[in-house]
């Protein structure tokens, strides 16, 4: 849509004004306007542009802060005690400080995705040129809903993606500046800025995924994307094993290319952890997925890898030490994570290989992906044969070490989930490894127990030893990430979603910091798949839900189809693919409801909030990226549920369902403000148990726009889950049943009794054409 750097040089020009010699005209950018959709009110919004919309949401969903620290130590006036109603030297309150930290977390997350997108884009432009076309998905015209909505641009080539990233980068600098001492002071304005960071993050993620889909041949929105394998057992240990960790696929792509070019896939196994693994498998399904990011220590300690290649994000910063313990070198490939290694980018590949193989260096930094491919393959082929058989502790060695336990319990206190590690160690000392094995699926792999242990026990290795047999059996099918939801799919399901007949979209996203293992993610997914919700997944969650089989030996990817429709399980892809999930919600507003997208954020968010029953679930949310992804959902009006560790993001955004005045909405047909009930009740919510989360997910799928049939379907799921998991009918049905037609037929008598006891009034809750935006009112009485 735009062209940069137009230069016009004229040796001599004669005109009415005179004669000019050596005239040069330079134009930075020319916009070719070939998009007939008129520009909306908020293209390229600044930090304060959408403040009023944010405040509407934040007025309903007030932050409940749970400070992780009562101090501020960001300037030299400090430390300042902010407890209670105290203020810091700059005047900031505790609420201000907490919201400031939330903003910073969201800025870090969004910057990380943006930097990832920029790094890939620069490289892909070098490889494919600025004019490389963008084709994101089959049967799709709305190729980039976030860019259209936020930036008001319709990208056609890689060049256009640069414009979107220019905007995001500029805004992120503005946002970080507001967190400086003596800038913003109001917590709600900080929260609005965090929303802004989240919105920017979804633009950046969209850029990142579009550019790799368009140029690297990844699946383009197909429901039947290929199956790959996931788990320790999927790795063929008879081959040399390269372990790729991180979130940037470029170095791994060149490893795979080198293997293909030299016909070496038969000799080398490429296994990945986290989103690099997702994207490797999207590039070539022969690339294996070992597991989520939390398995780094676990997999290295297995002794299986012969070479570790790291790119960026969520890496263990002590990876070099860990790799050294099993005698394998590390290749770092990103300036964001150089690990103190010598930069060998410009050296001869064979010299680098020799240094790594001979152990003269523990690792190297190579910024050029193509050279990474060559060096990695040549190195692993030489290293692997010499490493076999010398990798892990024996049972006897573990038992002997375990006898030295001091009973100090520091391992338990250091464990995020207070797992009974010490008892398991005592059992191992007696030769019983079962308790250690039982901790394996519950362990989040952080290694804090090891750091705390005064004897320096390698406890992650102990858990591996206890689960040795289970580990070898860990081999599951996983449908590779299919990328965007297509326009045709949106056209087919848009009506059913908006009217509530498909009860909702559950997006299982995020990291692997689970309170009780990854199987809870599969539990949630299957519960809602059976209930004919659409379940979409990305990142570590998309991996963890693969790792549970039923009695027939099938996992969820084998049991449920990959289409975006009721009962479909859609692996969208890596972290940056999250933009396609929110993008699908945006596309429902545009494709089904014909709402204009271009620079029209408020109207679309208002539509999504009131009509699209989507719920984000980040059961193991850990990172700042997860915070900014969630924040982008909040601004779009999509509620997010996190697991108990998610409470550590320091605040929830909670509605007060009993306060009728909080749930007033305009009827767009009349302009009247009416009560619509607390739907959805919360915008950001940390659940204590998986059972609580499932009931809340069903409840949060309700929207004011639900038809009576749709509301009845949604209520039936909410009531059924509540009865099963809480042992009773919900006590707040009177806030969600608008009229008799909303009541699910099969439970009518019981519900009517509950409604009667709660003083329910038929018709008190309005059914309307809902909007929070006064300007969307079409007619006034």
């Amino acid at each position, binding site marked *: 849509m735009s062209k940069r750097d137009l230069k016009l040089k004229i040796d001599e020009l004669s005109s009415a004004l005179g004669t000019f010699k050596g005239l040069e005209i330079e134009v930075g950018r020319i916009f070719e306007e070939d998009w007939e959709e008129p520009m909306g009110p908020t293209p390229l919004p600044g930090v304060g542009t959408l403040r009023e919309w944010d405040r509407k949401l934040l007025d309903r969903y007030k932050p409940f*802060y749970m400070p992780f620290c009562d101090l501020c130590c960001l300037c030299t006036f400090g430390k300042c005690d902010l407890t209670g109603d105290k203020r810091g030297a700059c005047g900031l309150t505790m609420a201000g400080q907490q919201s400031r930290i939330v903003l910073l977390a969201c800025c870090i997350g969004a910057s990380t995705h943006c930097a990832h997108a920029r790094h890939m884009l620069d490289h892909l432009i070098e490889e494919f040129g600025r004019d490389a076309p963008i084709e994101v998905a089959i049967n799709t015209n709305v190729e980039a809903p976030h860019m259209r909505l936020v930036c008001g641009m319709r990208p056609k080539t890689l060049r256009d993606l640069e414009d979107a990233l220019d905007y995001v980068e500029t805004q992120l600098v503005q946002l970080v500046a507001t967190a400086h001492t003596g800038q913003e002071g109001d917590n709600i304005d900080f929260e609005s800025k965090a929303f802004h960071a989240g919105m920017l993050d979804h633009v950046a993620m969209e850029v990142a995924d579009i550019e790799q889909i368009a140029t690297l041949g990844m699946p383009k929105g197909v429901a039947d994307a290929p199956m790959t394998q996931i788990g320790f057992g999927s790795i063929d240990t008879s081959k040399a094993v390269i372990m790729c960790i991180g979130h940037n696929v470029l170095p791994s792509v060149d490893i795979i290319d080198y293997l293909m070019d030299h016909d070496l896939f038969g000799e080398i196994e490429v296994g990945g952890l986290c989103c690099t693994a997702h994207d490797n498998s999207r590039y070539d399904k022969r690339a294996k997925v070992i597991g989520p990011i939390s398995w780094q220590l676990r997999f290295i300690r297995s002794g299986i890898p012969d070479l570790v290649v790291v790119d960026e994000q969520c890496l263990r910063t002590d990876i070099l030490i860990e790799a050294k313990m099993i005698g394998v070198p590390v290749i770092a490939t990103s300036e964001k994570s150089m690990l103190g290694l010598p930069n060998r980018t410009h050296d001869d590949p064979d010299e680098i290989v020799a240094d790594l193989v001979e152990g003269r260096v523990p690792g190297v930094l190579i910024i050029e992906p193509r050279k990474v491919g060559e060096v990695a393959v040549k190195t692993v082929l030489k290293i692997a044969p010499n490493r076999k058989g010398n990798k892990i502790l024996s049972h006897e060695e573990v038992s002997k070490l375990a006898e030295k336990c001091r009973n100090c319990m520091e391992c338990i206190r250091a464990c995020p989930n207070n797992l009974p590690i010490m008892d398991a160690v005592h059992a191992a000392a007696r030769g019983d490894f079962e308790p250690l094995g039982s901790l394996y699926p519950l362990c989040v792999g952080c290694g804090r127990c090891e750091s705390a242990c005064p004897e320096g026990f390698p406890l992650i290795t102990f858990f591996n030893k206890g689960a040795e047999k289970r580990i070898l059996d860990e081999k599951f099918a996983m449908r590779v990430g299919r990328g965007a939801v297509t326009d045709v799919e949106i056209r087919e399901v848009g009506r059913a979603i908006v009217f509530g007949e498909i009860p909702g979209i559950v997006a299982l996203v995020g990291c692997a910091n689970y309170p009780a293992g990854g199987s809870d993610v599969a539990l949630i997914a299957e519960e809602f798949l059976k209930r004919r919700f659409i379940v979409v997944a990305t990142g570590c969650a998309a991996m963890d839900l693969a790792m549970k089989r039923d009695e027939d030996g099938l996992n969820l990817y084998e049991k449920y189809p990959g289409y975006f429709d009721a009962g479909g399980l859609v692996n969208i892809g890596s972290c940056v693919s999250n933009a396609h999930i929110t993008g699908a919600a945006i596309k429902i507003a545009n494709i089904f409801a014909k709402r204009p997208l271009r620079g029209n954020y408020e109207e679309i968010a208002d539509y999504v909030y009131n009509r699209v029953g989507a719920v984000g679930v980040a059961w193991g949310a850990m990172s700042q990226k997860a915070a900014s992804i969630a924040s982008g959902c909040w601004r779009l009006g999509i509620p997010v549920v996190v697991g108990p560790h998610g409470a550590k993001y320091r605040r929830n955004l909670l509605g007060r369902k009993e306060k009728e005045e909080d749930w007033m909405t305009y009827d767009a047909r009349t302009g009247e403000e009416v009560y619509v009930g607390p739907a959805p009740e919360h915008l950001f919510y940390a659940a204590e148990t998986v059972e609580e989360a499932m009931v809340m997910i069903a409840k949060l799928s309700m929207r004011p726009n639900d038809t009576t049939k749709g509301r009845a379907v949604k209520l039936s799921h909410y009531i059924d889950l509540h009865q099963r998991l*809480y042992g009773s009918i919900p006590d707040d049905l009177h806030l969600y049943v608008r009229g008799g037609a909303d009541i699910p037929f099969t439970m009518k008598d019981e519900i009517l009794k509950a409604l009667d006891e709660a003083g329910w009034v038929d018709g008190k809750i309005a059914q309307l054409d809902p909007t929070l935006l006064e300007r969307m009112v079409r007619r006034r009485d």
Partner: protein
Amino acid sequence: MSVKMTPGQTAEIAGPKKAFVIPKPEVVASMIKRAKRPLLVVGSKADEIRTKDGDLIDSAIRMSKGGKVTVVATGHLVGEFRKRGKENTYSSQLMNLGDRLRDPDWEGFDGEGTYDLVVFAGSIYYMEWLIQSGLKNFAQGLSTISLAQSYQPNASWSLGTMPSEQWKEVIDKIVTMVEEGA
């Protein structure tokens, strides 16, 4: 009663304002007795925590028999109370409860007004830590007590960290005294 101010998780160190350590069980019983509207919050781990009564749910049910304490179960735990015959147990998500407790105008579960003393037992350690941090900072008129086996620094008052058997004894004494209205 020996007391240790060692948090249950290594890094969960609060401050500058930290919980007073409860020196003996009688203090808890006395605080509950003096409170106008005490609330006992029973967290989702309660059915996994052994006490002399069986588990913490059994202890909570016995504690409520004196009629002084309102009981609310968080997570999805209310079903377990009902199975054991305690039908009048309230249910609330922990986050919702924290949000309401910071509101002095909240009408409480029974419409009679908010609570002046909140006693926590059986919650996930770090969630209790966080909720009490929220209440310490944003509900300053509210007193909170933690009955966790490990010290909870963000409560107003907390039991000290102690071994399991000693903790069971302490809980038994508190429950008995509250049950008997002592």
